[in-house]
Every structure is written in C-alpha cells, then in structure tokens.
C-alpha cells in the first residue's frame, strides 16, 4: 500500500492496536480490509449493525462470532465492550480480597471479567454443597479449597489475570504479608467479628489504601435497601447495614450478589480515581 500523506490520515485502534488509516474510512471498508469474516463489529464499546463513518481516536473491535481467538487477540476481544480507556487503567492494578465465599467469589469474577490485572484472594475453607446457593463454584468442585476452585474458574474466564491463591486464615498476624502492595482491599468475610477485626487492623496499618466492605445482605428484603456509603476516611460500606444472617434469615444469591457487585463497582471507581458513593 502506498504511503498516505499525513494530512489525510487518522489514528484509530483496531482490536486495541493503534493504527493509521485514511481519513474518512468507513466501518465496513475497514472490516473488508482487516477481516472480511468479522460479523460482530464494536465501535467505542458498543456493537453496531450498520455501516458508519469512523473518526480519529475511535476504537473498533472486529470479532468473528463463534471463533476462539488467538492468545494475541484474546485480551482485546475480551475487553471490546468496555467503556474506552478503562482497561488500560486497571490492567496494572492489584486488588486484595479477604474471603472467597458469596461476596469474595463474585467480586473476584467481576474484577477478572473487566481485566483487573492482579488479584490476591485468601480463604481457608473448602467448597461444600451449601455454598452453591450463592457462591461462584460448581458441583464438581466440592471438597476443593475455595481459592483453588476460584483460580480455576477465573482462568476459564480471563487467563491473563494473575491470581494469587492464599489457602489460609487471615489473622492480625498475617494480613500484612498477605495483602501488602494492593491498590484497593475488599473485605468479603461472613462473620461480623472477622469483618471488624480485619478492617480495623488493615486500615490502621495501610492508612492510604481504600477498603471496600460488605454488611447487611441476608434474606430477601428489597434490593434498593442496598447502598454504597463512605463511612470513614478510607472505608466504603456496601449493603443495607442491618439484615444479618441468623436462624430464619438465610443468605441467598440475589442480595449477596447485589452487594458483591456494589463492592466490585466501588473497586472499579476507586481504581479509576472516582469516589464510589
């Protein structure tokens, strides 16, 4: 192809690779020159179904439906539906998660799906049948350490994530070594005393690192009672704050999942420099 004079080129991204094309190139023209088989075209994070003009700085992802991409293309294709610019900011980040139950397993999956580069997850427990009503595990994982099972599941979703599995009970004696260097910390325990113990020690030691905690998610009270609030300088609390797990009031996927995803979005906002509340 002949060199294009600089005044009539534009810079766009095709499958996350920067490239130069002639100004006024249209979407279908680009597809035909890059990959005629592509039948799912995503422009700036949104799938489009008609030809359209392209502009300088646009991000175009060309996908062949049903085809498993090569590992080079995989990352770009996994992130095609992101708001543009988000993935670059979070792929170098590290998030700590204490607990891999109903909250932790789902927070980890959400953060892996968006491409948070490194996750450190600690839990001493094994997968058992009563976990499956709300936790991201499968029947054939019963008996495995939760962190081992979660690592397997995350690798099936996004193999680029660096996942550190800590099969241990987090205590005031070992949390520092376990979670040193995280950009954001997530409290995802079940027990109220364990929550308070970890949060107070973590925030006292790592006073510059924000922590996102969960409290109040049992039963089937209305979803809209669940909120994200800033409750101390570096402490964000997701949940309704009051509905505790107790005899007669169980823990179930919908509300635990809502809190987990409040936590995951609070983490994302913190990593992007936004206030979660």
């Amino acid at each position, binding site marked *: 192809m002949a060199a294009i004079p600089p005044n009539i080129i534009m810079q766009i991204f095709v499958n996350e690779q920067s490239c130069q094309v002639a100004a006024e190139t249209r979407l279908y023209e680009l597809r035909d020159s890059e990959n005629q088989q592509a039948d799912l075209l995503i422009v700036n994070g949104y799938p489009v179904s008609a030809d359209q003009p392209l502009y300088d700085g646009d991000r175009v992802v060309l996908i062949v439906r049903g085809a498993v991409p090569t590992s080079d293309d995989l990352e770009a294709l996994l992130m095609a539906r992101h708001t543009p610019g988000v993935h670059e900011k979070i792929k170098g980040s590290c998030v700590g998660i204490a607990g891999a139950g109903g909250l932790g397993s789902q927070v980890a999956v959400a953060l892996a799906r968006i491409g948070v580069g490194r996750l450190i997850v600690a839990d001493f427990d094994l997968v058992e049948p009563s976990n499956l009503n709300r936790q991201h595990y499968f029947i054939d994982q019963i008996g495995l350490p939760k962190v081992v099972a979660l690592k397997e599941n995350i690798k099936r979703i996004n193999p680029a994530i660096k996942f550190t599995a800590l099969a241990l009970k987090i205590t005031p004696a070992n949390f520092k070594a376990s979670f040193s260097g995280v950009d954001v910390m997530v409290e995802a325990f079940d027990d109220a005393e364990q929550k308070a113990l970890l*949060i107070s020690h973590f925030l006292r030691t790592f006073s510059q690192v924000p922590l996102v905690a969960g409290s109040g998610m049992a039963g089937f009270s209305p979803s809209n009672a669940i909120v994200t609030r800033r409750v101390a300088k570096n402490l964000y609390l997701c949940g309704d704050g009051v509905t505790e797990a107790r005899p007669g009031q169980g823990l179930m996927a919908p509300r635990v999942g809502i809190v987990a995803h409040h936590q995951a979005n609070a983490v994302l906002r913190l990593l992007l420099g936004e206030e979660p509340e």
Partner: protein
Amino acid sequence: MKLSLNGQEREFTVPLNVEQLLEQLELNRNQVVVELNSDILTAENYVDTQLKDGDKLELIQFVGGG
C-alpha cells in the same frame, strides 16, 4: 463533654474512654470499627484511648453474612 458520633452531637457528663463509650451505647466492641478524628483504632487501643471534648467518632457496626 460533647462528642460527635456519626455526625450527631451528644453530651456526656462523665469522662469516658472508647471502651466505656461502646458499653454505654450498647455496641458490641468486637463487631464495630471505630474511627476517632480520622484515625482508625483497633480493639486493643479502646481502654487506653481517653475521649475529650470535641472528638469526632465514626462507629461502624457490622452484621454477619457474606
């Protein structure tokens, strides 16, 4: 002395440390996170931390479930 508790001003007539404040408020010391004037405390500091007029506290209670 006047203390700010979760943004609400409260008056107390006797000297209190953090442990005694939590008792008076009937909060379970093991299920609460205490922030005093923007610093988080741990439970082993509660008895030694004497409160004074004008202190601002955030007392965050946790319930089980996750």
